[in-house]
Structure formats: C-alpha cells, structure tokens
C-alpha cells in the first residue's frame, strides 16, 4: 500500500491552498450562520419581552380554557326575590331543565333545595338563606339581613377561597362554585362531557344511554305521536338549540363552497393571464411587466382587506367571501402559473412545432400537458389552504363556520363550542387535504 500519510506535500500546492482556504471559510460559515440565527432569535426574544411573558401568562385562564373545552357546568340558581329555582346547563335558557325532570343531584323539598356537589360538598338553599357544607372545613352559612349578608364560618380567618363582602359571598372549591348576593344564590357544578351535545334537556331523549336510544329508535313507542322516534331524534339533534348542529353543518358547507368557488374561479381566470405573463409565451414585455405588477398588487392586498372592500359593493354573504378569495388567488395563481410556464421543457414544444403546429396548438399540445399537473396540484393545494382561509374570511362576511368560531371565542364563555368547532375545522381541512391529494394523484397519474 502506498503511503498516504499527511507528511509529503501534495503535488498541487496551489490547489491544496485553495481547498484548505475554502474549508476554512466554510467552517466559519457553518458557525456563523447558526450563530446569526441564534443572535437574531435572542434579539427577537428581547423585543417580544419573552421574559416578561412568564409573569403575564395566566395559567388559570389556560386551566379554565382546558377545563371548559371538555367539561360543562350546571347552574342551580334561586332568585332570592321570587324564590324561583332554575337548573340550567351553562346557565343558558336553552339548557334549562324542565321542572320535574331535574338532575338527580338536585333535590327539592318544598322551600329546601339540596344540591349534592359530590365528595361530601353539599349546598342547601332554604328560606333563611343558604348553607354550604365543605368537608374538612365545616359549614358556611349565609343569611340575608335587611340589606346585608351575614356570613357565619367555622373558627379562624377566612380562607382565600371564600371571597366575602356584605353584599356578595362567593366560594370556590374543588366541588364547584357558589355565589350569594341579595338578588340570587347560585351554585355551579362542574362535570366532564358535553351533556347537551346530542339533545337539550327539554328533549325527551336527553340523558338516555346509547342502548336506550337505539331501543327507542328501533322499536320504542313513539314519544311524539306525530312522527317516528328516529325522525324526532334527527330533528332534535340537528335543531339542538345549544349546539345547533344543523346550522353548523350548513356553515361548514358554506365555508367549503366559498373555498371551492374562490379557488377554481381564480384558476380559470389565471390560466389565460398566466400565459400572458410568461416570458416565453408573451412577446410584449410591457404587457407582461404590467400584468406581473397587477398580480403583485392583488396578492399583496390580503384577502381580508378585499373582503372589506367588496362588502361595500356586494354586502355581507358568502359570495363576497368567495369573490375576495378569487381576487387574491388570481394574483397568486397568475404569478405561479406564469412561473410554471417559464419552466417548461422546450423539447416537447419543439416536437410539436416541428410538425408545423400554430401557436395555439403548440400551447395546447406542447405546453398544457406538461404544466397541467403542476397547475392542478397548485390549485388543489390552494383549495385546501383556502378552506382554512375561508373560515377566517367567513367571520367578516358573516358566513360559514368561521363566524361561529370567532364569535364563540369573542364571547369567551362557550369554549366547548370553540373546541368542537376547532375539531370540525381541523377535520374539514384534513378531509380537503386528503381529497385534494387524492385528486392530485388521480389526475396526474390517470388521464
């Protein structure tokens, strides 16, 4: 074996020097680039005040949010003036339990209402006021006296989970929340799940198990004599006043409709424009340049801004959203199509040209077959991402699932709706994603 140790000088000293110098430079670059990125991120962290963020972060909010995503609360409220008792999911009229069909943990005996919050926590409303028995602590007793509330607790200082003034007492425990004011007393019981997801409490199907429901649907006696149980169930589910499934599904359809119209409308418009803006197709440089700038402009103005502009002319509604999307995407497609056209393989065009084909025929047979898959896959990719944008645009033009979502978030209390909408949107986008992927494979491989 010949000696390949490092000692003898290489035969090409100049080459060796260049190579070694290059490696030195590259070595520096390999450190410089990550360092530069790191430095920038540090600067950004400072500019964004990430350190202060920890202090500002409200983890209780996160907890509320997470808990609210998958759990619900039931309000048991007594109006202290009229004495009327209501039990309602999330305290909403739509979630009101009809009298006589109250949940098992609320017992009403004359003036006395007993609420079993579980784990030994028991709240009692009676004529004198209300009492809350907290295990390992004792009984919190509240009695109104004239204009004031009198609070009696076990010995010692008030724990921080009792927030009391002479007008309002609230107690927050692991079992639930309780608040007493002169006008009303309210207990909140938290539990996992979305109880009214399928049927609201006023529905005869509320709270039934799957087997019971199946039984009712298949052979049970008609609860509503005018129609079969299955139909009643379907309508009860779709018209569920709390979850409004029918409206939600319609909203999803409307969202997809906007994305579909916007994307394909833009594609149809952009195809001829793309040809006109491609260097190898368009001999007039000025027109090409002008078109490119137009594309830049309509792309640069975001879809949301187009939405507002168009809302003046067309008013709120899904068409406005679709047109806004159509406009933005025409800009994107115009640019992308013309770039794809500039990258075509000239061999095929030449092959067609050598037979004496005219320019239209060259475009049809030399260009379209090879760019079609690229264009289609871009269009389908946009269809998927537009489904997502349509949720946002929908919020502004008053249509689609996005409207429901943003409003649920803005009101900050229907987090379970938010969770459900997010699930639906994610599923919808994923479905569009796989649909567009499937179409892409089908259209590009097939035909």
């Amino acid at each position, binding site marked *: 074996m010949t000696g390949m140790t490092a000692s003898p000088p290489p035969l090409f000293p100049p080459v060796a020097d260049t190579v070694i110098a290059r490696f030195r430079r590259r070595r520096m670059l390999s450190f410089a680039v990550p360092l530069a990125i790191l430095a920038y991120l540090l600067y950004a962290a400072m500019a964004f005040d990430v350190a202060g963020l920890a202090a500002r972060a409200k983890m209780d909010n996160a907890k509320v949010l997470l808990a609210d995503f998958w759990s619900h609360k039931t309000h048991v409220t007594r109006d202290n003036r009229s004495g009327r008792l209501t039990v309602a999911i999330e305290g909403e009229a739509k979630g009101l339990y009809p009298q006589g069909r109250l949940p098992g943990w609320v017992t009403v005996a004359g003036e006395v209402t007993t609420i079993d919050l579980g784990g030994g926590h028991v709240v009692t409303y009676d004529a004198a006021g209300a009492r809350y028995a907290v295990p390992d602590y004792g009984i919190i007793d509240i009695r109104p006296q004239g204009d004031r509330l009198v609070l009696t607790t076990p010995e010692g200082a008030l724990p921080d989970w009792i*927030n*009391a003034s002479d007008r309002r007492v609230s107690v927050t425990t692991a079992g639930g929340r309780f608040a007493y*004011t002169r006008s009303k007393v309210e207990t*909140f019981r938290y539990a996992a799940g979305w109880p009214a997801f399928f049927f609201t409490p006023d529905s005869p199907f509320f709270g039934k198990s799957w087997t019971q429901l199946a039984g009712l649907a298949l052979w049970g006696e008609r609860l509503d004599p005018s129609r079969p149980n299955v139909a009643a169930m379907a309508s009860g589910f779709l018209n569920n006043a709390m979850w409004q499934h029918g409206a939600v599904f319609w909203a999803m359809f409307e969202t997809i409709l906007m994305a579909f119209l916007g994307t394909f409308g833009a594609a149809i418009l952009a195809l001829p424009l793309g040809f006109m803006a491609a260097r190898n197709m368009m001999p007039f440089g000025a027109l090409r340049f002008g078109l490119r700038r137009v594309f830049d402009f309509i792309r640069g103005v975001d879809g949301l801004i187009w939405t507002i502009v168009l809302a003046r002319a067309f008013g709120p509604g899904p068409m406005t959203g679709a047109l806004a999307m159509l406009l933005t995407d025409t800009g994107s497609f115009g640019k992308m199509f013309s770039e794809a056209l500039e990258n075509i393989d000239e061999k095929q065009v030449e092959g067609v040209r050598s037979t004496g084909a005219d320019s239209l025929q060259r475009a049809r047979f030399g260009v379209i077959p090879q760019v079609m898959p690229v264009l289609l896959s871009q269009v389908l990719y946009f269809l998927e991402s537009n489904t997502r944008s349509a949720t946002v645009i929908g919020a*502004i033009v*008053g249509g689609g699932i996005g409207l429901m979502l943003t409003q649920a978030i803005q009101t900050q*209390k229907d987090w379970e709706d938010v969770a459900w909408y997010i699930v639906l949107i994610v599923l919808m986008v994923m479905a569009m994603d796989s649909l567009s992927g499937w179409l892409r494979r089908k259209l590009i491989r097939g035909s």
Partner: protein
Amino acid sequence: QEITQFNLGIMGGENAQDRMNSNECYRAAIEAELGVPVKVFTPADYDGVIQGLLGGSLDMAWLGASGYAKIFLTDPEAVEPVLTKQNMDGSTGYYAIGFARADSGIATIEDARGKSFAFAEPNSTSGYLVPGAELQEIVGPLADFFSDVRFSGGHEQSIVGVANGDFDAGVAWADGLGDWEDGYNSGAFRKAADAGLVDMNDITEIWRSKLIPEGPMVVRKALPQEVRDKIIQLTADLHETDRDCAYGVAHGEAMDFVPITHDAYEGIVAARKLEEASS
C-alpha cells in the same frame, strides 16, 4: 317603485346563530308584511353591516350608536334612525362604567391619575367613544392623565384584564339597574360574573358616564316610503303583538320599541368628530 327583497343586518355580542334564531320570527313577520323574501345577516365585524348599509345591500339594521354615527359621518343620506329600545324602567340607554380593583385604592376617577387605563376597542360606543370624550372633559387629555391608555379588544377583556391586574382601571358597559354585586341586570359585568370570569367583590365602580342612547334601528333612506312605514309600524307594535318575538329581537326584557330621531345621536356624532380631530 318596487322592492324584490329585503335584507336585515344585525350586530351584537351574541353568537351569530343565536341572533339568527332569535330574529327568525321577526324575519317571518316582515316577510309576511312586505310580501318579498327577507334575509338576515349577522357578520362578526361591525364593518360588515355598516358597509352593507352604505352600499345599499342591506335595507335595515340594528346598530350601535357609534356605528350609526360612523354611517352618518360617511354618508348622511344613507340611513335614518327610526326606532330604539325602551328598557323596563322606561329609560332608553345604558352606561359606560369605569371600574378598578377593589383593593387598588382607586375609588374615583381622580385616584386613577398616573395609572393605566383600558378601553374596549376604538369603535365601541360605550367601550371608548363616550367615556373617552367625557373623561377628557373631566380630566383633560387622557394620554397625560393616565400613564398608559390601551385597547383591550373588548369589554370582557377589559374586565378580566383589570381583575387580573393587567390594567389599573378600565371601562365597560352596564344598564346600571339592579345590584353591582350581580354585575347589574345586564351588560358586560353581568356576563363576566355569570361566566365566572370575575368576582364582582374584587372590582369596584369608580365612575359612570351620562346615559348613552341605545343603538337605533335604521332603515335605508332610499327605500320606498310605503315600505318604511310598514316596517316601522310592524316593529313598533311588536311588543304588543308578539311579546316572545319582541324578547328575542330586543335581546331580552324590554318595555317597547319607541321612535327616535337623529337628534338623539348628535352627542355621539360630536364625540366621534372630537375623537377624529384629536387623532
């Protein structure tokens, strides 16, 4: 001159679908009255309805006072206020209520000097426009009086932000009826308290604005007089003819829908102009 359809725009804090549902009876009533298809629109953004009215694609809407002022300033000939809501106590308005944490030692607006202050959002009547203008009259330029003036993004955010100590004081709306500890009978405080976002014991009222007029129901001026008359009549009578429906349309208990004119909103328009000039 004939109309072929009638579009109704609604804005407010509730969920879009709730708004749709609570206005369904009203929609059907108009349809029966006018004999043309009636559609209801509920965009999340103020601007959706406002642009629709300006562009003429919406014929009628319930607006906030500030929204009306915006339309008026853009195009005085576009719409005309015709009715507003009368509360159970006979009033036709609500208040912007300044508040602070109970343990912050701030009891009056004067105490808030040099502290941070949160408005809701710039387009909100009770969350910015009116309190902004009124406070300015009392204490002078707000930027000088407060250490920091922020927009929280909404009434709820203001309440939560103040309760959490992000801001020293803020402003949100309430009807001013009932008890503070309940968050009053209706308004942002009530909602936040009911939702458990805030404990009313933790915050205290430090200031209250003059009465802010309820937003008007406006109709497009270009509509045929006959159509406008029918619509106004129908709505004004709603509490008498269909109380349940009126409950939904009025967004809760209310006494009646009563006529109103542009004059009632002169103050708001002026406040807007003032704000505009100061920007």
